[in-house]
């Protein structure tokens, strides 16, 4: 039996990788993937806790997150395509109209 702390550590590493990727990368697709990485890091901790406490609510939450992530992926990819069509780039530093 692998101890809970291992799962949590892995989950934290995955999450931090996601955060760093989100902050550092310039390509929107990569950023998008970083988000998925963060979500899955969190999912991992959920199932780990669920197994540890023998409670199903954690697993239910994971399904919920996966559904939302699927929806998010659909919307997000659509936005990325739209951005690419108008700006001909996927570099977020050049997509900066949202400023004062």
């Amino acid at each position, binding site marked *: 039996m692998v101890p809970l702390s291992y799962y949590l550590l892995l989950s934290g590493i995955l999450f931090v990788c996601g*955060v760093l990727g*989100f*902050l550092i990368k310039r390509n929107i697709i990569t950023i998008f993937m970083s988000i998925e990485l963060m979500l899955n890091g969190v999912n991992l901790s959920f199932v780990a806790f669920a197994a540890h406490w023998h409670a199903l609510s954690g697993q239910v939450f994971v399904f919920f997150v996966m559904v939302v992530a699927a929806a998010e992926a659909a919307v997000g990819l659509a936005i990325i395509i739209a951005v690419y069509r108008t700006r001909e780039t996927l570099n*977020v*530093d050049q997509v*900066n109209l*949202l*400023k*004062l």
Partner: protein
Amino acid sequence: MTPNPYLWVIPILPLAGAAINGFFGRRSSKKAISTVALVFCGAAFAMALFLAASFSSASAPYYFDLAHWIRSGNFQVDFSFYLDQLSLVMLLVVTGVGFLIHIYSVGYMWDDDGYYRFMSYLNLFMFFMLTLVLAKNYLVMFIGWEGVGLASYLLIGFWFTKDSAAAAGKKAFIVNRIGDFGFLIALFLMIKHFGSLDFTHVFAGVRSLPTERAGAGLLTAIGLLLMVGAAGKSAQIPLYVWLPDAMEGPTPVSALIHAATMVTAGVYMVARSSAIFDRAPMAMMVVAIIGTLTALFAATIGIAQTDIKKVLAYSTVSQLGYMFMACGVGAFSAGIFHLMTHAFFKGLLFLAAGSVIHGVGGEQDMRRMGGLRVYMPWTFATMGIATLAIAGIPPLAGFWSKDEILWQAYNASWVYWLIGVITGFITSFYMFRLMYMTFGGEYRGAAVQEVHGHDAHGHGQAHGHGEPHESPWVMLGPLVVLALLSVVGGFVGYGNRFEHFLAPVFQQGVDVAGQGTSPEAVKSVEYLLMGISVGVAGLGWFLAYLLYSRRPQLPARIAASLGGLYQAVANKYYIDELYAALFVKPLIDGSTTILWHGVDQGVIDAAVNGSADAARHISDTARHMQSGNLRSYAGWVAAGAAVVITYMVWMGVR
């Protein structure tokens, strides 16, 4: 007391007229406007007559409670109306003279662009004046009191594009506010000490005070404060300054508001409060002294005025002084009697003056009139009657009432009487001076400019020959009726009938009933005094005739020889300048330096601008966070999350 459901209808009628003309008048024809104004005002007059027909000197007062207004603990004020002999006299005077002046206004104001506005204001004034007169408690009276002030303001400043008219309106309003302040404090005192503002309750409370001395201080304070209010509304020293300026308004306004009705509201209020004043001899004395001084003071100013309406304005102030003198010596019914006759002849004088002004094309300076008796015989005749009446020539109306006042004043103190007689002399002099300057001699004015298109009058006369012309009949009619009233109005008081009629109201006043049976010695004194006052009136007439008809060059020489004194009189004793230096200028300077530059700009504006500046500076710094760069946003989110997590871990929050 008898309830009477018609009472509240009387004031509401003119209000309806005012509302209809005010809201729809702009798009109505002038005929429709006139009809509405006259019908509603005339209906009020008819109602008043209808009530008067069933009301005798023995009748118990009518009252009507329209609605509750203020209920607070034991204190209550209702919208209630009240009619006794005193209010009946006022009611008839206000609606009767008011109706005549409405008719006159149709002719006088026909060509004015603001015709509908004028008629609406006039009706509005009638509503407030009737509310004032018919009130059953001091607070409803106060509604009317303030309302007539508002109507007066609107009508003085009727030609508001003229700076002087707008300023005069403001002056009237502000000076009246000073008086109203006193009135209000008096009301507060009544609430505190009698727990009510209802006339019957307050007066019963006053009468139930145990002895003559009890509550004398309180009653004196209330009396004096009421007098402050009355002095403001009725243009007595020291608050009379607004009335002469109020002549900037159209002439029917001067006649209705500033001669016949509104300015007498103060006299009415003092007479209404006779129960209070009877118990406050100090306050009575102040009323008498103020009245006497005002009568003399204003009359002297009237001598040297050249504007026909200004003469009449000072004459009004002076006559109001007579009324206060009467009230001050306890002869309330004599004061009200003079109020009534004054409404007839002074209303007539103003309307006739308006007819003159109308006839000579807007000129108001008597030095550019003269000889008008040829051109406007009807105006001349009616104004002549009014002049005889105000001068106190028997048997016209003014003689009876003024003589009654002087006789009562003599009974109180010969000083009042003497000053009253001197004032009578001056009154006679300046009124006949006005007559001779306006109607006597040759016409001195320029050819009349047709300032208003007379074709619109519909009286079909061809003007434009450059000569003064008589006014149309819609204006002359009211003059004739008022002239009749000025002739016969005085006989109401013959044999003290007027006093007996008002006796139920003033039953607690000084004993006036004994006069009918006064002994022969007293009678002979009364006739002697009557003779003297008629004599001085005749003397004033003669002097005016001498100076302004026989030797027209003499007045200028006399004026020159008097030098400074004449200048002082001609400049109204520099009272306006004195007030300006004493009150207005310090107020303006103080407001400018302390309130405007100091408080308003220094504190309020500074606080507002300062907070706006601070917000702008902070935002200016903070907006750099909002770069539009997605990764920097993400960085902020991450940093924020880090801070929150650190905090929670640090504090051990679970």
